[in-house]
């Protein structure tokens, strides 16, 4: 379970990102965070993985109180969360296989398990025949699928996707959304931050709408409405 309780994030007198937001996300939910640029979507995700600390309020993830977590406990928390970004963030000098394996290596998985899990994950995202290709040899959609395989390889409880389709053409965009839905069906909570109207309206899932750092709408089967 994820809970934001009266969370505010103020960077300075003139730059505040979130104002007293409160919401809860249950296990296996598919939740979209929508809002204009600067509405606070990315800040919510950063607070959840402990990249930022709230100025006020509590951020809870399962048994962790993220807002009070010690630096030394952050890696353990992050192994419960898979993260996907708009700009893919793949290691340019490692091939698709190595990029995915990297997430398991840093978590201390034995090599035998890595050799078994990585091909499975790459097959699942449809890249079984592109394992040896480097990011520069992959299309935008393929890069994002490698990023998804990396995010889900260690079977996290939550996948957090920050504008994952922002750099993709419509065909690839829907491929990625289908993948996220599939991951959700397999039992993983998905939090999708986006400002893509089509995606939200077609998903028909829970939508939390942010505006100027405030939650202005939280609907079970939401639509893309910014005002």
């Amino acid at each position, binding site marked *: 379970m994820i809970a934001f309780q009266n969370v505010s994030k103020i960077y300075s007198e003139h730059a505040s990102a979130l104002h007293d937001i409160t919401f809860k996300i249950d296990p296996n939910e598919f939740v979209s965070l929508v809002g204009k640029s600067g509405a606070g979507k990315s800040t919510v995700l950063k607070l959840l993985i402990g*990249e930022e600390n709230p100025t006020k309020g509590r951020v809870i993830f399962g048994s962790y109180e993220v807002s009070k977590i010690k630096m030394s406990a952050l890696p*353990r928390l992050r*192994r419960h969360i898979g993260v996907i970004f708009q700009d893919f*963030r*793949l*290691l340019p000098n490692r091939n698709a296989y190595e990029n995915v394996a990297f*997430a398991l290596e840093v*978590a201390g998985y*034995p090599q035998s398990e890595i050799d078994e899990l990585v091909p499975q994950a790459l097959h699942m995202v449809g890249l079984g025949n592109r394992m040896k290709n480097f990011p520069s040899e992959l299309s935008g959609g393929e890069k994002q699928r490698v990023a998804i395989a990396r995010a889900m390889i*260690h079977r996290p409880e939550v996948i957090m996707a920050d504008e994952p389709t922002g750099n993709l053409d419509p065909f690839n965009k829907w491929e990625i959304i289908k993948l996220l839905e599939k991951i959700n069906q397999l039992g993983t909570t998905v939090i999708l931050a986006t400002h893509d109207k089509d995606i939200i309206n077609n998903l028909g899932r829970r939508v939390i709408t942010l505006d100027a750092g405030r939650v202005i709408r939280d609907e079970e089967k939401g639509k893309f409405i910014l005002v």
Partner: protein
Amino acid sequence: MFTVLFRITKYGFQNFARNGLLSAATIGVMIIALTVFLSINLSHYIMETALIAVKDKIDISVYFKTTAPEDEMLRLKRSLEGLVEVKDVEYISRDKALQLFKDKHESDATINQAVSELGENPLSASLNIKAFDPKQYAAISEYLSDNALNSLVDKVTFAQNQTVIERLSLIIDTLQKGGLVLTAFLSVVAGLVIYNTIRLAIYSNREEIGIMRLVGASNTFIRGPYVFAGILYGVIAAAVSMILAAPAVFFVSPYLDVFVPNLNFKNYFLASLPVLMLYQLALGIALGAVSSYFAMRKHLRV
């Protein structure tokens, strides 16, 4: 644990190889620093040898009155030998002094003739006293100025050499303290230069570090490969600095050996090779590992 260590080592080698130019630059700076340290180390030995030679030439001579009985003189010798400051006391009897004088002026007929015309031995017996430390001559001289010895002692040469002895003591002290200060200063400068070079190498890998954090790598796992690469820089720089030093030592050795008595620079270098290499390795590894450790700190804060 073994898997983590293996992966840290693997990534360390990868970081080292991928940042070829920056690795070369870091090693270059380290080679300069380690060569300077090696030079200080070697010059310390040269200085020590030179100082021992100079110290060896300093002594106090006590000249006895020609009427002084030999057993009294020998008693004074024994009492001087009992002093903690005294390293060695040599007794030169009147006869031996005359023999030494004659030997020294063997080829000078005028002096020989003058000595034989005197009929009796004009030279006094003496004690040559060597201290462990030149600074201790003042205390020995103090001991010899005791009034009870007035009937025995004609003169003590320390008073005449005092200024030279004190000045030499001061030079020796200053050189040793100066060497320490220079070593400390160079350590700080080399540490800062290497720290900044490694920081640059780490900065160029910041995206990779960001991804490591994102996928839940522990601080040890993120820092480990960089510290390992730092150790690798240190080992290579230490080996290269020794390889560069060897021909230089062989080249200057004959000139230095002439200049400094009892010095055999080449032999010393060859005999001390394992110890010197160990010093270089220890310093190189410490500089590389510590600099990398601290250079990584900023990237581990989030």
